[in-house]
């Protein structure tokens, strides 16, 4: 298993007040994402556990694009990956952010 952690500073906190949410399932080609509103409002941390090593730069790019787009300030995001493709990861991250904004 490979562990990756990315920390970002955001311009604003993610709107809404949902304390936590989970989306997705750990299955082949899929992943689960746990989002918790536990960090300072301008911070976001994404921690990934993946069985597929060597994709660090891809994860980094996917997470950076997500942070730029969703501005998920205040969130600690934890990912259990089952070998999901980057497009699936992006989709789940956006789904998760949407759940937190509700």
């Amino acid at each position: 298993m490979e562990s990756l952690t990315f920390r970002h500073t955001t311009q604003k906190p993610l709107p809404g007040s949902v304390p936590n949410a989970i989306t997705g399932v750990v299955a082949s080609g899929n992943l689960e994402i746990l989002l918790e509103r536990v960090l300072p409002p301008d911070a976001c941390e994404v921690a990934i556990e993946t069985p597929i090593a060597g994709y660090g730069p891809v994860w980094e790019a996917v997470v950076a694009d997500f942070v730029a787009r969703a501005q998920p300030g205040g969130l600690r995001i934890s990912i259990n990956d089952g070998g999901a493709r980057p497009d699936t990861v992006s989709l789940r991250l956006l789904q998760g952010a949407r759940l937190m904004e509700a």
Partner: protein
Amino acid sequence: MAGAHAASTDPDALSWYEATARQRVVALADPGSFQEFLPPTERRMSPHLPLFDLPRAFDDGIVVGRAALDGKPVLVAAQEGRFMGGAFGEIHGAKLVGLLRAALTLKPAAVLILFDTGGVRLQEANAGETAIAETMRAIVDVRAAGIPVIGLIGGRAGCYGGGGLIAGTCSRLAVSEGGRISVSGPEVIETNKGAEEFDSRDRALVWRTMGGKHRRLIGGADAFCTDSVSAFREAALDLIGRAPAFDLATLEAEQARLESRIARFGDCRDATEIWARLGVNDSEAVPAMDTRAFDETVSRVREADHDAR
């Protein structure tokens, strides 16, 4: 999100087969009533899977908690069939056993188990096997305390291995057409007995032999649902209301029925022969029947309603 979440909260539109364990529980219970025990934020994950370089799930593939069903308090467990095939590992099993033991104190109107499992998780087999035994023991205690335990089966992993054994100890079972109940899975049978005996790729054969319609016709399940969360909810409410007593007379009657079943059908080569002997006129037509036609067929078969599986 309109699409995703409108679908996931409307129990009429939500397919049981397609839904995740979490979606099933939330949509099955009265709106807003589900409270999870040991939620994902607690991160009670498998201590074993990392040794095999396998990913873990925050809830170890089972969602447990309390909820209300038509205003009545219930305890609920739901297996996630897509994580490790819904298999029983140490934490997964302990959460189910703990929930059942809590029932003895909390005295809910029922315990609902939403099965979706291939059996025991190979990577933590000893713990998984122990969990199966402990779960059956706990179900016996809960039923003896007068609390019905209702199994709901309609997920993609079916209800196999130890899950099939546990289902056998429940008070009542509801199953959908896509649901399967058995102990050995199709591939296991083929591996041990050969494709001539059981061709696991012949999916029509698999469902004829282990699927929801067959189990309902021979009385292995007590209710047959369309594949929606609302249908399972209705079935659960109905079955809670007519759970059998858990006493010696019930057990002896079950034993007698199982003996007569093997005597009556033991020489059948295919489920269609069993259905014909049960009095189904056009047994070949059963797999293609819609729910209404099938319900009518079931209503004419006497064996469909009894307590033996």
